């Protein structure tokens, strides 16, 4: 514990390596990119993603509505069939 090694004693080496990993003229490149008009490709990609998401939401909504209508129709059909069975001559005959 008394002479425990200090891991951060090599921190200056980390900063030195990090600086060496930077390509030259970072400030110039950043300012150039900042001043450039928005990338057309990324605009197209954003538009594509937005439209796809909207289309998917619309498709899901239509599918859900269709399912609901089908369920309601199915319920109504079952009720009609029950009524038809009750009012048929076979069901009204006295035992």
């Amino acid at each position: 514990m008394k002479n425990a090694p200090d891991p951060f004693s090599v921190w200056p080496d980390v900063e030195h390596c990090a600086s060496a990993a930077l390509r030259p003229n970072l400030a110039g490149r950043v300012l150039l990119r900042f001043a450039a008009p928005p990338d057309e490709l990324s605009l197209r990609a954003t538009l594509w993603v937005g439209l796809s998401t909207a289309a998917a939401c619309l498709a899901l909504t239509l599918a859900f509505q269709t399912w609901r209508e089908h369920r309601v129709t199915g319920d109504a059909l079952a009720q009609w069939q029950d009524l038809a069975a009750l009012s048929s001559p076979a069901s009204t005959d006295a035992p």
Partner: protein
Amino acid sequence: MPCTLASPVAPPDGPPLDLVKAAQAGTLSAQSELIHAYQARLAGFVYAMLGRAAPVDDLCQDIFIKMLRGLPHLHSPELFEPWLFRMARNACIDHTRREKWRHIFTPFDPATDDMPIPVDAEKRDRAEALLALLQRLHPRDRSILIMAQQGLSLAEMARTCASTTTAIKTRLHRARERLRKLYEKRA
């Protein structure tokens, strides 16, 4: 005597308020000077967070561009440093998440190899040894340790992490203990 981490690299006193305000106003020379002033520290932060040299340049570029876009909306220029490191921290965490998904779908992508850094091999080996240990910590703890090493105060780190000073102090202490134990095991 308990093991203590080396005192952090003496930080600059923060950028002069005039420089930040001039950069906010759009003065190119001020923006360039601000980038120059912070590029080494930011690169060190990103390198330590990610543990790899390959993404450092691109990520630093992205962070500085976000900085330039967000500068007009920074209402307190005196909080520039914690604001910048908060962006850097979030960018590193987002990058790590994206890489995780990329590795799932392309596990044998050669782009995952790191790039060689043109420095003295001994320095590189020492730095990589420390970074390997840092990667074993939780990203939150890692970012706090690195920010402490960069010279940010507890209050600034709390602001960066949207936490309280007490919580940061506790977390920092635990992270240092864990790193010390990992380092001793390795040694």
